[in-house]
C-alpha cells in the first residue's frame, strides 16, 4: 500500500462497506453496468428543477424509445421473442402432433416428412416436443423475473430510502444470499422440496436471484433521493409513500428493466440446467433441458434430438439477453 498520509484525501473515492464486494454476480451485471443506466444522467441536460421530475423520465424515455427504434438488435430480439411467446401460448398452431404420443417403435428416427426434427429415445416427435417445450421455459423465466423484481425492488427500495440500521441488516442479508451461486442454491433447494412443480422452480430461482435487482434499486433510490427535486418535494411536505411512488420509483426503474430482461434469459438457462440435471421441472412437464438430457444417451444414433431443442433454448436465452442489451444501450448514452 502506498503511503496515504498526504493531502487531498477528501477527494478520494473510499471503499468501505458502503459498496461491498462488487465482484461476481449474475452474468447480467456485465451486460448492464449498474451505474450507467440511471435516467438521472440524461436528465442532466434537460430542464433542471422547477418543472418537477415527471419531465425528466418522460424526455429520457422518449429518447430511449427513439434510440430503440433505430436498433437492429431490438428488432431481431423483438421478433424472435414475439414468435417464441406466441409458440408458448398456442403450440397447437405449429403442430398437430401430440408431444406425449410416443410409439415405442419409432425411436431415434432422423428428420423426415412425418417427423420434421426426427424422434427421440421414447419415439416422441422431437418437433412437437420442442414446440411445446417453449411454454415451461417462458413461464419460468417470466414468473421468476416478476418475483425477483418484487422481492429485490422492495428490499432495495426500503434499504435505499430508509438507510440506517435497516439498510445495514438488509445489506448483510443480501450478502448472505450472494454467498451461494444461483445454480448451487437452486440445486439444493430443488433436491430438498418434496413435490417439484413449475412453481417450485420459480421459487428456487426467485429466492436466490433477487440480490442484484436489490442492489441496483438501492443505488438508484439513493441517487434519486439526494437529487434536488426530491429534496424540494420533501421540503414542500410530500409524504414518504408519495415521494417513493411519484419521484423515486419512476427514476429507478430503468436500470431494473435492463437487468430484469437479461436475468430472464439467465433464469431460462438455469431452469434448463436444473432439468438437464434431472432436478428441475417434474418429468410430466415438457422441458427443453430434460429433453436435451435424455438426448445425450442417443447422441451417436441421432444427434438431431439434441440439436433442435438446444437451438431453441439458446435462441430464447439469446433473444432476452439481446433485448436487454438493446434496452441498456438505449437508456445509457454513455457508450454510444
Amino acid at each position, binding site marked *: 500500500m*502506498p503511503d*496515504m498520509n*498526504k*493531502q*487531498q484525501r477528501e*477527494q*478520494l473515492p473510499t471503499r468501505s462497506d458502503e459498496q461491498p464486494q462488487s465482484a461476481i454476480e449474475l452474468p447480467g451485471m456485465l451486460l448492464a453496468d449498474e451505474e450507467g443506466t440511471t435516467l438521472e444522467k440524461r436528465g442532466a441536460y434537460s430542464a433542471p428543477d422547477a418543472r418537477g421530475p415527471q419531465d425528466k423520465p418522460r424526455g429520457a424515455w422518449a429518447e430511449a424509445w427513439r434510440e430503440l427504434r433505430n436498433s437492429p438488435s431490438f428488432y431481431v430480439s423483438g421478433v424472435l421473442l414475439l414468435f417464441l411467446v406466441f409458440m408458448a401460448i398456442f403450440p397447437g398452431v405449429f403442430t398437430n402432433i401430440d408431444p406425449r404420443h410416443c410409439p415405442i417403435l419409432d425411436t431415434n428416427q432422423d428428420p423426415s416428412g412425418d417427423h420434421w426434427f426426427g424422434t427421440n429415445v421414447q419415439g416422441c416427435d422431437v418437433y412437437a416436443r420442442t414446440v411445446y417445450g417453449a411454454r415451461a421455459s417462458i413461464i419460468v423465466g417470466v414468473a421468476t423475473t416478476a418475483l425477483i423484481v418484487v422481492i429485490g425492488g422492495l428490499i432495495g427500495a426500503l434499504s435505499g430510502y430508509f438507510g440506517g440500521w435497516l439498510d445495514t441488516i438488509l445489506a448483510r442479508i443480501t450478502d448472505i444470499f450472494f454467498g451461494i451461486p444461483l445454480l448451487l442454491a437452486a440445486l439444493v433447494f430443488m433436491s430438498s422440496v418434496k413435490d417439484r412443480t413449475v412453481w417450485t422452480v420459480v421459487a428456487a430461482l426467485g429466492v436466490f436471484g433477487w440480490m442484484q435487482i436489490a442492489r441496483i434499486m438501492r443505488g438508484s433510490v439513493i441517487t434519486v433521493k439526494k437529487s434536488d427535486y426530491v429534496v424540494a418535494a420533501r421540503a414542500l411536505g410530500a409524504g414518504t409513500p408519495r415521494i417513493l411512488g411519484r419521484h423515486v420509483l419512476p427514476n429507478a426503474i430503468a436500470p431494473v428493466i435492463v437487468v430484469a430482461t437479461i436475468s430472464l434469459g439467465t433464469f431460462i438457462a438455469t431452469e434448463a440446467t436444473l432439468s438437464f440435471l434431472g432436478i428441475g421441472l417434474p418429468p410430466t412437464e415438457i422441458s427443453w433441458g430434460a429433453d436435451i438430457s435424455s438426448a445425450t444417451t442417443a447422441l451417436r444414433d441421432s444427434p438431431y434430438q439434441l440439436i433442435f431443442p438446444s437451438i431453441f433454448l439458446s435462441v430464447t436465452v439469446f433473444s432476452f439477453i439481446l433485448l436487454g442489451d438493446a434496452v441498456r444501450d438505449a437508456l445509457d448514452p454513455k457508450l*454510444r
Partner: protein
Amino acid sequence: MTTIDTKNKPEGSGPAAAAPLLEVDNLHVEFRTRDGVAKAINGVSYDVSAGETLAVLGESGSGKSVTAQTIMGILDMPPGHITGGEIRFHGKDMLKMSKEERRKIRGQKISMIFQDALSALNPVYSVGFQLAEMFTVHRGMSKKDAKLKSIELMDQVRIPAAKDRVNDYPHQFSGGMRQRIMIAMALALDPELIIADEPTTALDVTVQAQVMDLLAELQRERNMGLILITHDLGVVADVADKIAVMYAGRIVEQAPVRELYRQPTHPYTKGLLESIPRLDHKGRELYAIKGLPPNLMRIPSGCAFNPRCPYAQDVCRSEIPPLHEISVGRGSACHFWETVMEGEVRG
C-alpha cells in the same frame, strides 16, 4: 464555401522577421457523427515564432482546442477528419509526415499542457514515473537517472520537497501542484513550442496567477514558442504578444495584444471586452453578448456571428467576411470593421 477566405491569409508577424516556428495554414477539420457533420474548424490560419506567445481566445466550441489537438496530432480520428490545410513546423507540413515522424515531434519538439491535470495525469502511476517516462522512452535513460531528472524538473517548477514527493500519486497533490507537474512534463525535453490548453481554468483564482507566471517565466528563459488557449481575456493581457480570436471555427480577429484591447475591430471581440466586469463601472449593468454560440452542424450562413451581432446587415447573412488586413499583423473578419473600430468600447 470554405475557400473564400483563403486569399486573405493573415500575415505572420512576430518580433523577429525570421520564419515562424509553426504555421497553421487554412486548416479545416470536421467531425462526422451519427447525427451529422460538425464543421469544427473552417479555415484557420495562425503562426507562432520562437519566444513568442500567441493567445487563442474563444468560447467552448469555437474550435480553439480542436486546432491545438490537430497540431499535436492527438485528435480523435474518427470522428475527426482533417479536410484541408497545412500545419508547418519549421516549414515542413506535419500533416504529410509519417506517424513515426510525428510521434518524434510530440513531447520532444512540441508539447502540450492540458486543462485538467487531475484527469490528464494517469491516476495509477506516481508523478515520478510519469515524468521519468519522458526520459526513458525518448532519451533512453536508465530508470535511476530518469528519476533524478524528474526530481530536478519538479524543483524547476517549484514543487516543494520534490525529492520526497516524487513517488506520490497525482491525487495526492493540490490542483496548482498538479498543474506544475503537467508543466514540468511538457518542459522535460526542452521543446521548441508549448501548447497550453486552458492551463489555469481548473485552478483557484489565487493559484491561477502563480501558475501563469511560472509558465511565462519558463517560456522566456527558454525562448520557446507558446500557444495559450483560453476563454479568459484577463489571463491573456499580461503574457501574450498577439491574440487570435476564434468564433465557430474561424479566426474573426487577429491583432497584437495591446491594439486588440485598445481598439477591437470585430463586434465579437468588442462584446467580449465589454463583458469584463470593471471596478470603475460599478453600478452599470454588465454587458453580455446576446444569444448562444452556434451549433456547428448548422452554422448560420454568411458571417457565423450575424444572429448575435448588433452591427448585422443583410450582407452579413449572405456573405462570409474574409479576414480584412487592417495593418501588419492585424486583421478582422467583419464586413463593417471600420464602423466597429470607430465606436468606443462600452463596458
